[in-house]
C-alpha cells in the first residue's frame, strides 16, 4: 500500500494545518481613562486561515492597531475570545510564532542596525544571520549605523528585517511601509509576497492604501470607526503574481471602487 502524501503531512503537522491562524470571536475593547471611555472595538469577528494573507483598511482611529495588539496578546480585550493557532496568543508568543512590525519602528537606539536584528534572532532563538536579513530589505550597507542616523523609511526596513528574522508563522504588520517612497514600497511588497509564498506564513497587514491591500491580499477587511467594527470582508479574486498591470484591469478597479465607497459612506 502506498502512503498518501497528503495524509502523511496532515499527521506530521497535527491539527495546526486545518486550524485557523487567527480566530476572533465578538472581540470588544474600550480604553478607560479617568473621565472618558473610548470604545475602540465592538464585537469583531474575524478568522484568518493558515497561509492566508489578509489586509485591514479603515479610517484613522478605527481600531486597527488595537485589533493587532489583541491578536498579539499585547492587549487583553475587554470581552471576546482571541486564539492564535488554536490557543491563546500567549502560547503562540512562547512558541516564537509571532512576528510583529509596529506602526512606529520601535528600534533600540543604543544598538546598531545589525545589533537590533541580532536581538530579535536572539530572543526568538531563530537561526540565520542578521546581515542576510538586512541584505534582503536592502540596507546591509547601513548595518553599522545607529537608528538616529537613519531616515524614517530606513528605520522601517530595519523593523521589517527584525520581524522577518524571527522566522514567524504569523506576521502582524501595522502600516509597515508607511514611511517609504513609492518605489521602495513596491519593492518591499514584492519582497513580502515572495517570503509569504515561500514560507506559507499567515499575514495580517494593516494599511491605508487600498491598492496595496488589493495587490497583496487574499482578503481585505474593511473597518469603520467609533466604535471599530468590520464593515465587510472583500475577497480578492485576482490571479498571482500580481503586477502593476492589474491596476487598470476591470476586476481590480471594481474592487478598489467598492472598498472606497464602503469607506466613504461609513465616514
Amino acid at each position, binding site marked *: 500500500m502506498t502512503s498518501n502524501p497528503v495524509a502523511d503531512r496532515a499527521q506530521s503537522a497535527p491539527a495546526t494545518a486545518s486550524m485557523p491562524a487567527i480566530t476572533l470571536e465578538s472581540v470588544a475593547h474600550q480604553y478607560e481613562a479617568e473621565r472618558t471611555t473610548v470604545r475602540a472595538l465592538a464585537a469583531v469577528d474575524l478568522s484568518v486561515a493558515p497561509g492566508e494573507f489578509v489586509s485591514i483598511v479603515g479610517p484613522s482611529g478605527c481600531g486597527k492597531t488595537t485589533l493587532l*495588539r489583541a491578536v*498579539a*496578546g*499585547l492587549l487583553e480585550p475587554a470581552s471576546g475570545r482571541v486564539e492564535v493557532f488554536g490557543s491563546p496568543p*500567549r502560547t503562540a*508568543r*512562547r512558541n*516564537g510564532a*509571532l*512576528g*510583529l512590525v*509596529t*506602526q*512606529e*519602528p*520601535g*528600534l*533600540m*537606539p*543604543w544598538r546598531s542596525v545589525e545589533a537590533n536584528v541580532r*536581538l*530579535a534572532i536572539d*530572543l*526568538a532563538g531563530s537561526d*540565520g544571520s542578521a546581515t*542576510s536579513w538586512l*541584505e*534582503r*530589505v*536592502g*540596507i546591509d*550597507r*547601513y548595518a553599522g549605523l*545607529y*537608528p*538616529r542616523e537613519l*531616515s524614517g*523609511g*530606513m528605520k522601517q*526596513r530595519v*523593523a521589517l528585517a*527584525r520581524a522577518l528574522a*524571527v*522566522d514567524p508563522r504569523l506576521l*502582524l504588520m501595522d502600516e509597515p511601509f508607511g514611511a517609504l517612497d513609492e*518605489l*521602495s514600497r513596491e*519593492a*518591499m511588497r*514584492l*519582497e513580502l509576497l*515572495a517570503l509569504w509564498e*515561500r*514560507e506559507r506564513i499567515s499575514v495580517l497587514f494593516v494599511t491605508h492604501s487600498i491598492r496595496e491591500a488589493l495587490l497583496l491580499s487574499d482578503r481585505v477587511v474593511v473597518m469603520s470607526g467609533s466604535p471599530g467594527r468590520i464593515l465587510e470582508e472583500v475577497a480578492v479574486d485576482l490571479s498571482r503574481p500580481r503586477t502593476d498591470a492589474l491596476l487598470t484591469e476591470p476586476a481590480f478597479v471594481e474592487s478598489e471602487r467598492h472598498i472606497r465607497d464602503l469607506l466613504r459612506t461609513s465616514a
Partner: protein
Amino acid sequence: MQRTGQLETPAPAAPEVVAVRPSARAAARVRGWLAVTVPPVVALVVLVIGWEFWVREREIAEYLVPKPSAVFEALRDDPGRYVTAARESLTAAMGGLIIASVGAFALAVLMAHSRLLERALYPPALLVKLTPIVAVYPLFAIWFGFGVGPKIAIAALITFFPMLVNALIGLRAVDPAALDFMRALDASRWRVLWSLRMPSSLPYVFAALRISVPLSLIGAVVAEFLSGSSGMGQLILIANGDFDTPALFGAIVVLATLGVALTGIVAYIERRVLFWHDSMTGP
C-alpha cells in the same frame, strides 16, 4: 527554512560621503574646543587681575577680601594641608554618592516592576528627602561614630532621592513600540529590564548624576562643619576661627575645582555612554 531568492530591492539612496582629511577634522575639533574654553578662561584671568589691583589700590583689609596673590600663597605654602583635607572630603562624597546611586537604582528597579511597592515606598523616600539633613547629623554621629561614617551617610542621604526619582522615570520611559516588539517575542521581565529598561534609563541616570555629584560634595562638607573633625569643612572652620581669610578663599578655590572636575568627568562619561541619544550632537 530555506532563505534563497535574493530580491532586487532598491537600496535607499546612499548619503553622499565627503572625504575629510583626518588632520582637518582634528584641527576643527581643536578649534571647537578652544572656542568654548578660551572665553571663560580669559574672563576669569581678567577678573582675578582686576580684583588684585582693586584690593591693592583701595588697601582693603586682608581679613575682609584678600588679594588673589595672597590666596595663591596660602595654597602654595602648605599644599599638603589642602590635599589631605580634599582627599578626606572627596572620599566621603564619592562613597556616599556610589552607595546612594546603586541603592536608589536598585530600589527604582523594584518600584518600576510593582506599583504596590512604589506606592508603599515612595512617600517614605520623599519624607527622607524633605527632612533637613542637618537635623539627622547628630543621629548619624551616634550610629556611625565620628570618622568618615556619618559623612558618607549624609552624602548618601542627600543624593539618594534625585537618583531614585530619575531612575524610576527612566525605567518607565520606554518606547512602547520597542516594548511591544519584545513582548511579542515573549521576552521575560528580566530580559526586558536588561535589554530595554536599563538602557532607556541611562539618560535619566546621567541627569541625576549631574545633580547629585555637586550635592554629594555639599553633603560631605556640611557633615564636616557639624563634626569639625576633618576634611575641607574642618579646614574652613579653622581658617574662619583664625581670621585667615586667604586660607578660607583657598578652601573655596579647592572645592570649586573639585566640583568642576567631577562634573567634567561625569559629562565625559555621559558623552561616551549616551552617544546614541538625541541629546548628543557632534562627534
